[in-house]
């Protein structure tokens, strides 16, 4: 009997993770699969369902689109924090942003945060830009931030974060300067919120953002995808980058073995540039040397 129960639980888990992959492209690692029931408990309660098996059975009947949406939202990992990976933000502030300031023509800076979750990372970037506003004043700065989770995008748009959220990574000076009390929470200032265009978007949708971006952040996103889908995302990012673009991935992510669109950036450790651009630079360099 216990074997049957375990089998039926595994079957339900397979159905639920299959739904997540079909709708978002994300696969559930063993660690996240283990947390599946915890993540889905509020959904079970709201919809009056006894367990995951009942949930899976109802989803298979395909009669409740709202339930399907709620399940996907619950299974997406929206963990994020301000200035996550301080070293990377130090490099952004000290090297990458000054480099883009030097090299981008027409005083236009375009940034795309693909998989922005609840917004902390892209707000951190906006804070860095605002803290160096004398450098960027007069520039046209466009920041697009997209995520598949509608719930995450709504929070990001609102810019409201708990006391615990703002204490993780945000320096107290930046909290005072760029946030205001909002009940027991804190809200990003209108200046910060106005800088960012938050949109719900699926990286595998036919819809794509327009044009090329100078700085692309796709951090802690690829790790949820199969190798084929990682390559597809890097191709998408490649289509929206140019020879001088800089791509930033999560600390545990790489482009190695993920197609030939990007290569390690020659100037900024841990970041990436378009493969063709780096190759062209090397060829030009060797011609000059010759």
């Amino acid at each position: 009997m216990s074997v049957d129960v375990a089998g039926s639980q595994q079957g339900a888990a397979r159905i639920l993770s299959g739904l997540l992959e079909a709708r978002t492209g994300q696969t559930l690692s063993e660690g996240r699969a283990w947390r599946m029931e915890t993540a889905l408990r509020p959904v079970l309660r709201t919809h009056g369902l006894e367990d995951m098996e009942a949930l899976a059975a109802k989803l298979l009947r395909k009669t409740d689109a709202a339930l399907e949406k709620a399940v996907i939202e619950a299974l997406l990992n929206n963990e994020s924090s301000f200035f996550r990976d301080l070293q990377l933000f130090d490099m952004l502030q000290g090297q990458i942003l000054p480099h883009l300031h030097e090299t981008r023509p027409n005083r236009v800076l375009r940034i795309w945060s693909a998989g922005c979750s609840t917004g902390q990372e892209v707000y951190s970037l906006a804070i860095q830009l605002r803290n160096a506003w004398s450098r960027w004043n007069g520039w046209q700065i466009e920041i697009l931030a997209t995520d598949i989770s509608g719930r995450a995008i709504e929070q990001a748009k609102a810019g409201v974060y708990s006391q615990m959220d703002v204490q993780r990574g945000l320096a107290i000076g930046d909290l005072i300067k760029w946030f205001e009390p909002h009940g027991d929470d804190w809200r990003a200032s209108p200046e910060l919120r106005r800088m960012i265009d938050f949109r719900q978007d699926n990286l595998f949708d036919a819809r794509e953002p327009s044009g090329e971006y100078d700085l692309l952040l796709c951090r802690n996103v690829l790790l949820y995808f199969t190798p084929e889908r990682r390559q597809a995302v890097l191709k998408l990012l490649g289509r929206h980058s140019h020879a001088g673009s800089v791509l930033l991935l999560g600390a545990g992510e790489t482009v190695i073995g993920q197609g030939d669109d990007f290569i390690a950036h020659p100037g900024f450790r841990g970041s990436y540039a378009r493969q063709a651009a780096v190759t062209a630079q090397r060829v030009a360099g060797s011609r000059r040397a010759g």
Partner: protein
Amino acid sequence: MKNCLVVDDSKVIRKVARHILESLDLSVSEAVDGQDALTQCEASAPDVVLLDWNMPVMSGMEFLQALSSAKMTARPKIIFCTTENGISHIKAAVDAGADEYVMKPFDRETLESKLSIVGII
């Protein structure tokens, strides 16, 4: 190993903070109020002080003011750690020279983040 002086009149808070800080590879000493902390700082300056606001004998703010005229080889980083979570208190602490501010309740991630921001870990 860097040293953190935990200044709080609550034994429980000191114990919780010590547990977290030691797990972050810091050595920990404790003070029960601002005066105790000042005496310890003058004897041997810690790298960082985790400082409560409201304490008997000498408050956190009074400690901060006294610290500026204390005889010390190097000024420690000051992280306020308090239930005074209003923006006026935060601004007052920063104006008085606090390097960082932790609003209670706190957890390991919060302390780790603040210690990293002030360059201790």
